[in-house]
């Protein structure tokens, strides 16, 4: 190489070093380019399979041969409650204004493809991709979850303490905090809890006495394990599960033991503030508030699930629907109240609710104690009809707007992930081809 060529090449190399983008720790080349609508998103998978008939259409018992209609979800929807043939114990709304008036209601959203199973419904909502997998297997999904998109494509990179998934039950749901996608996976996953177990009898028996070590001992432990691991070729990451850094892990540990030993008082989302009338869904919602209070995550997904009792008990379904509605109202009240303001959540949080799927138009053969017919969900058209509610402060979310109707449905289940990516400002950084849905931008001011 002659001198002239060397100088030219060296100059080009130097120029490219200055001009070229830096590779960020998150694996991206550039910082997130989109601006945020809000800094916190709570996605409630209002699950268990909810028919639009009993929710947004407010038909109550009209499909049971009784001429009684009315709104059993007074915290989420505007409308008068039923006044006769009450098969549930009505609780006074916790909100003075229903959430549909504090946001935008997509009244006819569609779950367009694949079997309407619970695992499918959850997976579709949390990955933004339809799935044909019909089994409720405890297996990480094929496509990345919204947690992974969020953590990988946010800048600066977000720790797992910023992303939480809380489920009412176990079954296949613990596996939804990250996918088996080769480009994503546990390093971008969310913290997961099933509060009924962690904070229930099992946690009480086996976790309550777990020691919260002093920083000196944490340091010693770190030193020892570092030495032991340095003498072993394989990685503990292969064991699966999301991995918090040491500091965050100790914070989560202190949180769990704090709830178990009562130093972090648990609040019951019921009218009396006690366990009276509490359901598994309300326990999950109460735990969600505690996580928000402790960590102020930017992204949280929780589900309700007790409504699945509708397979055999329509009365129970109505009761749980009413209670889950109360819980959502209670949670929003906390976020928008003084406690939420102190935590920086007020007016900076967007709440999204959507059932994972609906239920059949035709009932099955079972009747409950009130002789009301039960409903399954076997992928008929009715079980593909759901709603979504996007709630947020004025200026961020359009208030009191209803989008779509039966003859003109707007939105799909796969649209929630891109919508959340839009809110948190990383939608444009997600590689093409991964998300077939669109952001429901009609909801935003």
């Amino acid at each position: 190489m002659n001198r002239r060529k060397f100088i030219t090449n060296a100059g080009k190399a130097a120029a490219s070093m200055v001009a070229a983008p830096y590779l960020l720790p998150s694996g991206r080349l550039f910082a997130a380019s989109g601006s945020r609508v809000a800094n916190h998103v709570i996605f409630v998978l209002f699950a268990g399979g909810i028919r639009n008939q009993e929710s947004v259409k407010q038909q109550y018992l009209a499909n049971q041969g009784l001429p009684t209609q009315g709104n059993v979800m007074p915290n989420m929807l505007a409308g008068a409650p039923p006044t006769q043939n009450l098969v549930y114990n009505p609780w006074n709304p916790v909100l003075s204004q229903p959430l549909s008036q504090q946001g935008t209601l997509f009244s006819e959203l569609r779950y367009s493809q694949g079997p309407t199973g619970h695992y499918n419904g959850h997976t579709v909502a949390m990955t933004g991709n339809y799935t044909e997998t019909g089994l409720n297997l405890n297996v990480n999904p094929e496509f990345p979850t919204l947690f992974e998109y969020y953590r990988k494509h946010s800048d600066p990179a977000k720790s797992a303490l910023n992303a939480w998934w809380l489920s009412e039950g176990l079954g296949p749901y613990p596996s939804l905090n990250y996918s088996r996608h080769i480009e994503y996976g546990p390093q971008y996953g969310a913290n997961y809890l099933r509060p009924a177990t962690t904070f229930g009898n099992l946690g009480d028996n086996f976790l309550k006495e777990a020691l919260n070590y002093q920083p000196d001992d944490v340091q010693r432990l770190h030193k020892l394990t570092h030495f032991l691991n340095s003498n072993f070729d394989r990685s503990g990451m292969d064991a699966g599960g999301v991995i918090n850094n040491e500091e965050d892990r100790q914070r989560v540990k202190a949180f769990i033991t704090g709830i178990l030993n009562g130093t972090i008082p648990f609040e019951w989302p019921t009218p009396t503030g006690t366990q009276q009338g509490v359901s598994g869904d309300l326990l999950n919602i109460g735990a969600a508030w505690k996580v928000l209070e402790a960590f102020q995550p930017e992204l949280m997904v929780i589900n309700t699930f007790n409504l699945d009792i509708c397979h055999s008990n329509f009365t129970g379904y109505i009761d749980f629907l009413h209670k889950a509605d109360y819980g959502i109202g209670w949670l929003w009240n906390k976020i928008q109240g003084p406690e939420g303001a102190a935590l920086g959540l007020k007016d900076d949080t967007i709440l999204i609710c959507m059932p994972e799927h609906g239920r059949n138009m035709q009932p099955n053969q079972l009747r409950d104690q009130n002789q009301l017919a039960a409903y399954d969900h076997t992928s008929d058209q009715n079980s593909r009809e759901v709603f979504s509610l996007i709630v947020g402060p004025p200026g961020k979310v359009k208030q009191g707007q209803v989008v779509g109707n039966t003859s003109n449905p707007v939105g799909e289940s796969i649209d929630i992930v891109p919508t959340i990516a839009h809110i948190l400002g990383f939608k444009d950084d997600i590689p093409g081809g991964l998300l077939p849905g669109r952001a429901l931008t009609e909801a935003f001011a």
Partner: protein
Amino acid sequence: MPASKYLTGCLIALLAFLASCQETVIQETVHDNVIYEVDTVSIYTSNVEKDKLKSSIQFISILYADLFKQAITSATLARLDELKLSIGDKGLANEMIITDFLQDAGVELPSDADMRNDIASFVNDTYIRFYARQPTEYEAYYMASMIEQDPGMTPALVYLSFMLSDEYLYY
């Protein structure tokens, strides 16, 4: 009777007697009554032999046996497995379960004085107890040094570090 004939007759009589009264001893072993005791031995000559990840059930069973020196009941095993499922950070779940166990009086935990009286034996025993192998010379030396140089290093912390280490996840 000549002596030889007498002796022959006695021998035949003796053989006939032995043949007619042969005792048959049958030893029955009832396996349910056999008591197996935990006897910690080295299984691995090197940690390179550990290439399979323990399942959650295996991890809990082995952990329990290593700490309490007795087998876990199936009911407790199922409950702990469910508890582990309920926490997404499996390392955290393990840490919490182990530290909770370490508070249990049933855990065979040497005192700090015992550990410091013979650090070399403690290190050796700990490697065998949790890793089912002897430490290498380097491991034995370095681990002993860490204990020796730090008065705050307790047997519980050492045990915990072994049970939280990557090697303990494998067999």
